[in-house]
C-alpha cells in the first residue's frame, strides 16, 4: 500500500507541475498580447504597397497599440492592397481623415500600422475607410532611388 501511495503522490506532483508549466507558458509568455479588447470596430485602408505587413500586426497611435490587423486582401480592380483592422471601441474619438502609414519597429523589426491624427470633426466608425495612406518603405526601392539620384548627379 505504501508503494501505491508514493506512486500516487509522484503522479499527482508530476501532473500538477506539468499543468503549472503549461499555465505559466500560456499566461506569462503571451500575456503581453497588449491588445485584447472585447468590443472593437472595423476600419479599412488601401495601400499601394504593404511591404511585409502581416495579419495580427498591431495598429498604433502615438506609439500605443489600439488595434490589430484582421485581414489583408488584394483588390484586383484598383490593384491595391486592402487592409482591414479593428480598433478598440473605447478609442472612438479618432478623426476620419487620419493618416495611416506602414512603419517598421526598429531597424529589422516587424511592421505595423501607425495612425496620425487628422483634423476632421467626424470620427471613425465601423466600416469607415481611411483615405490618406502611406505605403511601406521598401528598402530595395529606396536604395534604387538613391542610386539613380546619385547617378544623375554625377552626369551633371
Amino acid at each position, binding site marked *: 500500500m505504501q508503494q501505491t501511495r508514493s506512486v500516487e503522490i509522484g503522479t499527482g506532483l*508530476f501532473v500538477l507541475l*506539468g499543468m503549472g*508549466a503549461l499555465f505559466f*507558458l500560456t499566461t506569462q509568455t503571451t500575456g503581453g498580447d497588449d491588445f485584447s479588447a472585447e468590443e472593437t470596430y472595423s476600419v479599412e485602408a488601401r495601400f499601394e504597397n504593404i511591404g511585409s505587413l502581416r495579419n495580427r500586426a498591431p495598429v498604433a497611435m502615438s506609439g500605443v497599440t489600439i488595434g490589430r490587423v484582421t485581414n489583408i486582401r488584394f483588390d484586383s480592380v484598383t490593384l491595391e492592397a486592402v487592409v482591414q483592422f479593428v480598433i478598440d471601441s473605447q478609442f472612438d474619438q479618432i478623426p476620419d481623415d487620419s493618416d495611416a502609414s506602414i512603419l517598421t519597429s526598429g531597424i529589422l523589426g516587424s511592421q505595423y500600422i501607425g495612425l496620425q491624427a487628422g483634423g476632421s470633426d467626424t470620427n471613425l466608425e465601423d466600416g469607415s475607410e481611411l483615405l490618406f495612406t502611406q505605403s511601406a518603405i521598401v528598402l530595395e526601392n529606396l536604395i534604387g532611388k538613391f542610386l539613380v539620384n546619385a547617378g544623375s548627379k554625377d552626369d551633371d
Partner: protein
Amino acid sequence: MTSVFRDVFNTSVEFVRTFGAFQLFSLRVLRYSPGVLLSRFDLVVKQVFNTGALSLVIIMVCGLFVGGVLGLQGYSNLARFNAEDSIGVFAAFGLIKELGPVITALLFAGRAGTALASEIGLMKATDQLSAMEMMAVNPVPRVLVPRFLGGIIAMPLLVAVFSMIGLFGTHLVAVELLSVDVGAFWQQIQITVDMDDIKEGIFKSLVFGVAASMIAVWEGYNAVPTAEGVGRATTRTVVITAIAVLVFDFMITAVML
C-alpha cells in the same frame, strides 16, 4: 548482380510489410484506447508515473542547460545587432515551438521509451504475456494500451516543464550573467509570442507523444523473446523514435508556417 538486386527487393518488401504490420498494430491499440481510458484509468495513472514522473529529473536538468545555451548563443549573435533585448524572444520561440517538443521527445525515447520497450519485451520473454493470454486476459488492453496512453498524457506535460525550465535557464544566463534588462527580456517575449505558437508546441508534443509511445510499445511487443532480442528492441526504439520525431517535426513545421 542479381543477388544484390534480389536482396534489395526482399529488404524493401520486408520494410513495407513491417510498416503495414505497424499500422495494423496501431489501429488495434487505438481501438482499445477509449475503453481503457474509461474503465481502467488506474492502470493509465500508474503508467503516467512510470513514463512521466520518472522522466522529470532528466527533462528538468536538460531543459535548464538547453535554455542556458540558447542564452549564450543568442547573446553572442544578437549583440552584434544591438538586439540583446530580443534574446528572450529568440529563446522562447526556439523552446516553445522546436527545441521543447523535439528534445523532450528524444529524451523521452531514451528514458521512458527504452524502459517501456524492455519491460514489455521482458514480459514477453518470460512468458508473462502468454500467461495473460492463458488467463483469458487480452494483453493489448491490459498491458500495451495503458502504457501507450500514459506516454501520450505525460509528453505534453513534460514538454511544458522543459520549455518553462528552459526559459528560466535563458533568464539565468541572460539576465543574471550577461545583465540583459529583465523587463525588456520578459516584455519582448510577451509581445511576440502568440497563443498560436504555444498551440503549435502542444500539438507537436501530442504528435510526438503518440509516435514515441507507439513505437516503444510496438518494439517491445514484437521483440524477439531473448535477452539479445530485448536489447535490440530498446536500441531500435531510440533510433526509430528519433527519426520519426524529426521527420514529423519537419512536416508539422512546414504545414504550420
